[in-house]
């Protein structure tokens, strides 16, 4: 397959997929090396420089989105606002789950210092968080973790993109 042809197909695949497509999936369909696919995506990025849409790398895949500067115009289309803001409580719980998943409700509450049932429920309703099974042991408490929708909603490539967490266990040393 010629590079130009591969590029065109890649463009079409990214456009048509109902979710962000990973380089791996693209490579499988195109029967090319993932490294080559990433080079192709760079070429597409350049070719769309003067267009209203651009490629975004999110939730482990690639997706076409409109450029931020035309957002005010798109708003006029009256697309339902899916991204209603979250409460502070919801954001705190989400931040904790993102870093410490899989995590139980009582562990979240210990960090936040307050009950978090309704915060967690809201996160689940909005599909930002899901139950990931249960922890072995007394009471077999439910474990929570974040979803791909969380990554997409917040424009994250993966959880690694979040700033790394200072190690609190070493605190004893610093206090001294």
């Amino acid at each position: 397959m010629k590079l130009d042809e591969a590029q065109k197909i890649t463009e079409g695949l990214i456009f048509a997929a109902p979710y962000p497509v990973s380089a791996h999936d693209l490579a499988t369909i195109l029967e090319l090396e993932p490294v080559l696919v990433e080079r192709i995506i760079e070429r597409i990025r350049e070719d769309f420089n003067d267009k209203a849409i651009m490629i975004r790398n999110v939730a482990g895949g690639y997706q076409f989105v409109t450029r931020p500067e035309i957002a005010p115009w798109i708003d006029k289309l009256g697309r339902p606002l899916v991204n209603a803001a979250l409460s502070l409580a919801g954001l705190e719980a989400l931040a904790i789950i993102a870093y410490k998943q899989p995590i139980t409700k009582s562990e979240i509450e210990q960090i936040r210092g307050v009950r978090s049932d309704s915060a967690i429920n809201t996160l689940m309703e909005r599909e930002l968080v899901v139950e990931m099974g249960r922890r072995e042991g007394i009471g077999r408490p439910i474990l929570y973790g974040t979803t791909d929708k969380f990554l997409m909603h917040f424009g994250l490539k993966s959880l690694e993109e979040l700033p790394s967490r200072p190690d609190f266990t070493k605190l004893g040393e610093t206090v001294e």
Partner: protein
Amino acid sequence: MGYLVRLEIFEGPFDLLLNLIERDEIDILDIPIAKIAQEYLVYLKQMQEQDLVISGDFLVMAATLLQIKARMLLPHNPEVVATEDEQDPREELVGRLLEYKFFKEISTLLVDKWQLTATLYPRVVRRGEKKDPIYTNLIGDISIDQLAKLYEQVLQVVDDEDPVQKIHRRVSLQECIARVRQRLLAVKEGTFTELVTVKERYWVILTFLAVLELVRKREILAVQDGEFGEIYLQINPEYEEEIS
């Protein structure tokens, strides 16, 4: 007449404590516990005066602060301090505060990220835009000869029912049983509805009787989806083996 001070609402005791520490520009690693405990209690008192519900979590923290304060006031044993590092009574609290502070900062980062993402519109994938499925079992195990046989069966019904005869000629139960048996042998399984090729009361009853007879003779197996549900029919593998 008292005056009302609008109290800031905090997410929890850590949120309040952190706010006091930041307001007073205190080093979080060296909290003057007596001072902070005092301010914390003042805030709780104000909440009480304004009839705000103070959750148990705030009270637990108040108790913790007072406990740490008491431990700090205990005279140190100079010998112990000199030889071993005695644990600072504030250590656990500071650890938890730092951890909470980190996640609080992450929440504001998430807000920033969200605000940026909200300006990037992806394409709306319409619900009708469902992908055509890939059929992994296109026809089943049926061979072309079985398909031909099935065709014969279907045609036979038509041949039997030429316009003149249609009204007068009635197929017997024996004929109907033979027909149902042959059809199921050809296709292995199907539903009752599919067997009734002519939607007339006579045919429905006759076919039903034929099915009952074949079930009784254990030539076919039947399962129904509850009352008035579809009846699923299958040729009994034992019978099939027997006749082959």
